[in-house]
């Protein structure tokens, strides 16, 4: 029985890399706002969002506006950002900030590592395709 879904390696690499860099930005904004009062740390559920993107499902956060008058401008929902969730704070702080710099840093480093992994996987699938085209071992 095959439980691991099979995807094209280029498609997978692209989706993973895009999502990793998006999460990179999200985690960096958590770190930058570590001292901002009332800021809530946010993150995405990487695994489920990646599966959604690979299986071609629409973005969970797409916004559409209903037109109630003919003069209204048609808005296309081009929002492609995945659903963001708030992290549950470990140690509540008095100013309402839920960023724990240690947790964020750990996640940030881990995410950077996996980004590098995604880059090297994508690179190696490029190389193997190239060697199939040219007939030369890479």
């Amino acid at each position, binding site marked *: 029985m095959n439980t691991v879904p099979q995807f094209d390696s280029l498609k997978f690499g692209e989706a993973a*890399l*895009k999502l990793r*860099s*998006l999460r*990179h*930005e*999200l985690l*960096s*904004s958590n*770190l*930058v*706002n*570590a*001292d*901002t*009062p009332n*800021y809530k740390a946010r993150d995405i559920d990487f695994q489920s969002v990646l599966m959604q993107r690979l299986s071609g499902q629409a973005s969970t956060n797409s916004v559409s506006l209903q037109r109630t008058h003919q003069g209204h401008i048609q808005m296309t929902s081009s929002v492609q*950002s995945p659903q*963001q969730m708030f992290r549950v704070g470990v140690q509540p702080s008095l100013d309402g900030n839920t960023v724990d*710099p240690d947790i964020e*840093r750990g996640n*940030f*480093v881990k995410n*950077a590592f996996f*980004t*590098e992994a995604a*880059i*090297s996987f*994508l*690179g190696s699938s*490029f*190389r193997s395709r*190239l060697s199939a085209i040219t007939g030369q071992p890479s």
Partner: protein
Amino acid sequence: MSLMGTFDVGTTGLVAQSLRLNLIASNVANAESAVSADGQAYRSRHVVLQSETRAGRVGQGVKVARIVESNAEPRMEYRPGHPLADSRGYVTMSNVNPAEQMVDMVSASRAYQFNIEMMNTTKQLMLKTLDLGK
């Protein structure tokens, strides 16, 4: 590209934290000032940080919303010979709390370091991406 956005986010952090460090330097320098330029006793200054949403981006930067002056009571020092002493011999000093400033300074410099580190990591990732397929 999201990695580019991280640089923008990091830059807002650097700007905000360096302004915060600047104010701390001003507070520490004026801890022993009796009167500031406007003729009043110096009041310690603090930044109010606020997150800053950017259109179409997931990452939020940070900005200094405003600078507030502390309304703590100024320190009164008994110095009868001082030219600025009042009729009872007390001089109004600044309301800077040095311990508070030290704590704030450590927090600001740590945050600044985090930002630099974050941008360095991002730079390495981008360079790796440029080498993709080689």
